[in-house]
């Protein structure tokens, strides 16, 4: 038993973690340099002026990429375990954003920044502690009520059902919150900045990135190091065999939806803090991009979803930085198509070891 209990997915997880971190840092630096050069060559900036701007944009990219990655995890985990593309997941994110607005707005009552640091931490942590379980349970509840009865049905039935659930959730939000934008309280002070290399970097961007990283590393640890995480991996590999070994498949699948919903709720909270609005159809576009991220990274693959999310963030940012915002979606799907032509299973492929 002790042998199985140890995290045996990789012989040396520490070395692997360090290698991944090094690659990620190298990729971010590469993006920074490419953008710096692109801005000075095609953007009409001087090479000196382009650097701080490129640095700011890189932080922007990491921050929107982190939001996409958090949502993409929900798509990829669900696909990994029951091979369902959960089209309603984007709307789960949207409901998470709304719930955070209701909670924070209900306490602060206005849109002003909270400069009292302990109070700010309490508000944000409170919003996370409240919204993550509620939205997670909602997602698991939807699975229990709608997808579970269809688990043995032909593959198309749950897929279309997921589209239906997406419409239901959107219309619930439409009915309650109305059809316009809703103001999200930007309690995180937007003028908190640090100066790095001549650039003013907003602390909020760093906070979003760090929060997302903490949640993702937590997920990674959960999946690779806990008994329940092992059950998830086992169920993903072979549901029947896992069941024969005593894994409760229903419980494991519920858990997957719970975690996916919790991550989406966290993404919803930081969305509101950064962009200052939420609306009922927010989940459609964000969901589409996060789903693309999951496919790009290799759907079913947790690390792939995170990488995919950041890549989409970088592509979007690159287009916006050079003044081609209207081509963002075009560029994203061109790159997705190219990747899928040469690697049909996405960048990391869908059958790597930590598939969940």
């Amino acid at each position, binding site marked *: 038993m002790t042998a199985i209990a140890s995290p045996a997915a990789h012989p040396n997880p520490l070395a692997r973690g360090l290698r991944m971190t090094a690659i990620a840092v190298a990729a971010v630096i590469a993006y920074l340099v490419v953008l710096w050069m692109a801005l000075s060559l095609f953007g009409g900036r001087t090479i000196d002026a382009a650097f701080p701007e490129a640095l700011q944009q890189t932080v922007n990219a990491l921050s929107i990429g982190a939001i996409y990655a958090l949502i993409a995890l929900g798509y990829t985990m669900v696909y990994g375990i029951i091979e369902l593309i959960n089209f309603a997941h984007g709307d789960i994110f949207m409901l998470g954003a709304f719930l955070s607005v209701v909670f924070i707005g209900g306490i602060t009552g206005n849109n002003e920044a909270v400069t009292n640091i302990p109070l700010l931490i309490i508000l944000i942590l409170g919003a996370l502690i409240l919204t993550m379980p509620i939205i997670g349970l909602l997602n698991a509840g939807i699975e229990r009520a709608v997808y579970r009865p269809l688990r043995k049905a032909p593959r198309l039935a749950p897929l279309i059902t997921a589209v239906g659930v997406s419409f239901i959730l959107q219309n619930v939000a439409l009915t309650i919150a109305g059809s316009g934008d809703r103001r999200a309280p930007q309690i995180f002070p937007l003028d908190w900045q640090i100066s790095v290399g001549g650039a003013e970097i907003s602390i909020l961007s760093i906070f979003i990135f760090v929060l997302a990283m903490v949640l993702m590393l937590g997920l990674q640890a959960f999946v690779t190091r806990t008994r329940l995480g092992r059950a998830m991996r086992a169920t993903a590999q072979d549901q029947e065999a896992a069941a024969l070994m005593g894994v409760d498949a229903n419980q494991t699948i519920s858990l997957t939806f719970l975690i996916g919903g919790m991550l989406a709720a966290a993404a919803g909270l930081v969305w509101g803090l950064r962009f200052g*609005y939420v609306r009922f159809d927010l989940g459609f576009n964000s969901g589409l991009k996060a789903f693309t991220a999951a496919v790009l990274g290799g759907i079913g693959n947790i690390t792939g979803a995170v990488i995919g999310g950041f890549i989409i963030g970088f592509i*979007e940012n690159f287009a916006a930085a050079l003044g081609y915002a209207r081509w963002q979606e075009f560029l994203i799907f061109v790159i997705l198509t190219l990747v899928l032509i040469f690697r049909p299973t996405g960048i990391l492929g869908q059958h790597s070891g930590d598939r969940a």
Partner: protein
Amino acid sequence: MKLTKYSVIAASAAIVFGACGGGGSASLNKNIQIAVELPFQGSEKAASDPILNGIRLAVKQAGGKVGDFTVTVPNSAVFDDALNGVHDAQTGANNMTKIVGDPNYVAVVGPLNSSVAKAEIPVSNAAGLLQCSPANTNPDLTAGAAAAALRTKPNNYIRVVTTDAVQGPAGAAYIIKELGKKSVYIIDDTETFGKGVADSFEAEFKARGGTVVKRDAAPKTTQDYVSIMTAAKALNPESIYFGGVTATGGARILLAAAQVGLGDIPFVGPDGINDGSGETKDSFLNLAAAAAKNAYSTLAGPGTFEGKDKFDADYKAEYGIDSTGYAGQGFACTQVVLDALKRAIATNPKTDAELREAVRVAGTDSTYTYSLNVGSVTFDKNGDTSQLIVSIYSVDPAGANGKGDWKYETQIDAAVK
């Protein structure tokens, strides 16, 4: 079996044709209605509600009567062209098909959005129904080959606001002359209206010697406006011009601009962001809140006119709130319709169809001078107003109980250069 089937079809066809023949042409109905076609969802509801109020106020002040005809605007005559919270051209065209098919309607007031008008004009034109828009500003709706392509019959469409060919340049003139800013960053929402008004703004800004640091475009589905505004900040513009409406990102762009440190330069937009005070749900000022302190908007109609005080007082007495946006233009359109109806009745129409055509002919008569709340107005053969006035509004943060409100600044008359 076959015989029965055919006889059923024949019978139902007879019923349908019979019903059609009996309803429309034989008689003249003296209880008539004015149809209203506007978007009533999302942030555009904030712009449409005052217009509808203006329409009903005009009908009420006319005593609900023209000659021995009773004129009403019941709720059943108010059509909503919004779909999922935003105006939708196809929904507008479907509404217009319903409106022209009902002989009770002698004219229609609307729509709000130029893209919707583009889909509606072919329908209303083919039916010969007088259509007056209180808010459409795209030039291609009335003049040139694009406008001609929308019409198969004589013109039926007029508007009481001037076009973006006047509105955009007025914004440019205001930024350079009154605000004293020589450079601008322009971003539009890629839609018919937003791109059009930004184009004419850009041409005028350059013609006046100003510098356009960059022209950007971001569709309403854009997620991350912060990156776009970070790029804008690096170019150090002295002002920002937004071509679009609140529903396509007006407030989102301003919030992102404030976040990257562009919150202290003028942010100027067209009538699409002048959609009510900070107390109005979904309005630009409500969403942008404190970030809107340096915002300006233009309206493609006069902001002050003879009788403005009376109109405002009457409006306030009727609805208990201040008139905003294009309320006065909704009133003006209805005055046009009622005036045209009066002259149409004088021609002694015998049937509903004759009345409708007479109203269209009277309404689009380019030799007739209307006396409207906004002043004396004629409409040219394309349906454009003789008033080339654009008014400018700034934000009064203390207005509307501290939620912020638009404050009239000045107006620019392109006819007196």
